[in-house]
């Protein structure tokens, strides 16, 4: 695809100053959006560290688990890095991420390793969406809503906007159903319209694969609040998609 056209602002933006501006806002002005932007910028670094450890592993470990440890290490590095010291963040963060992945692998019990990170994310998601009220006025409608919400989750996982953890591109082939592609495009459009915090939770959970606890750390929210934002985002998407 043709690269995005350069804008006037691109012409004058100095990447070092632009990154310093993000650090200033994240660190000294407590701006969680800038913190998220920095996290997104360095997520490739975290994944590459996790991938190296995946190659060295001595027992069955889910690659997703290694990535969670890498993300955790990245979040800690974001908090501890001093942007005034002049050390590039990548050089500072890489050994810390690697250390966190190595420690995480040691801490993992065999039982943990059996339950894949993907399964854990789905359990967490399910808990956020439920439980259905004890006696809903319309039980069938409540069940249908839950089914749609879970299906939405599966579609969000496969929107193909980001590469999956295993590196496989799961975007639809041109031969796959038009309706599926249209729904996916509608979801992508609706994601852009979500309130900022809801959009951030959905992006980080479904696209990056972060647990609610890590999203809470990233956005400076409580885990309960992240779960609420997830639920309300999914409900909002469901309501809006009904009009498509």
């Amino acid at each position, binding site marked *: 695809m043709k690269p995005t056209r350069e*804008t*006037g602002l691109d012409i004058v933006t100095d990447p070092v100053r632009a990154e*310093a501006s993000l650090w200033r806002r994240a660190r000294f002005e407590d701006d969680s959006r800038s913190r998220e932007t920095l996290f997104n910028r360095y997520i490739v670094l975290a994944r590459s560290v996790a991938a190296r450890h995946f190659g060295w592993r001595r027992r069955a470990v889910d690659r997703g688990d290694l990535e969670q440890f890498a993300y955790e290490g990245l979040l800690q590095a974001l908090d501890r890095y001093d942007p005034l010291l002049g050390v590039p963040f990548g050089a500072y963060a890489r050994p810390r991420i690697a250390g966190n992945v190595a420690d995480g692998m040691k801490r993992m019990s065999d039982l943990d390793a059996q339950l894949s990170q993907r399964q854990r994310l789905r359990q967490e998601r399910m808990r956020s969406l439920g439980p259905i009220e004890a006696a809903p006025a319309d039980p069938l409608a409540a069940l249908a809503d839950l089914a749609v919400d879970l299906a939405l989750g599966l579609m969000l996982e496969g929107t193909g906007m980001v590469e999956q953890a295993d590196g496989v*591109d799961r975007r639809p*082939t041109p031969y796959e159903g038009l309706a599926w592609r249209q729904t996916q495009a509608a979801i992508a459009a609706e994601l852009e319209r979500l309130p900022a915090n809801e959009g951030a939770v959905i992006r980080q959970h479904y696209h990056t694969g972060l647990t609610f606890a890590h999203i809470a750390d990233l956005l400076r929210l409580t885990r309960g609040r992240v779960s609420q934002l997830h639920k309300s985002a999914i409900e909002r998407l469901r309501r809006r998609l009904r009009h498509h």
Partner: protein
Amino acid sequence: MTLCDDIRLQELMTAIAADKGDEIAQVDRALADFPDDPRLHFLRGSLLAAIGRPIEALSALKAAVALAPDFAIARFQLGFFQLTSGEAGDALSTWGPLALLPDGHYLRTFVAGLTYLIRDEFAAAVEQLRLGIATNEENLPLNRDMQLIIDRISELTAGDGGDETMSATSLLLGQFSGRSN
């Protein structure tokens, strides 16, 4: 407000020009004696920006403008620093009071040009930046910076065949061009 006297300021500038590597320490010593002198904060900000300490540079430039809101060149440079940090909204807010400069003042013209640039209105941006360069005789290094921007715009627009609006077909095909399986 006690200002650093001109002789000491001149000595400071001469020492900085000697490039011994202790410029910041020298300015800090002067600032310890004259903490409210906006020129010293501006000088400190410019030096910090030049040696790649942007977070502290911004603070120093902001301090200069806060102490002397009419210090036009400091205000322009603070806005330009914000612009080059990708903070276009902050830059426009900083530059706002420069609209009160006389019509035809080079800083006002440069701001007009850079504002067009932010809006991607390249022809108008180049026109205003050229006009500013033609009228600026007091701050020649600034002309060099603005000329660099004009050159960059020329490079960008030279390769522009007018096909930036992608057709729906090419968008759809492009979507699948990067498949790995």
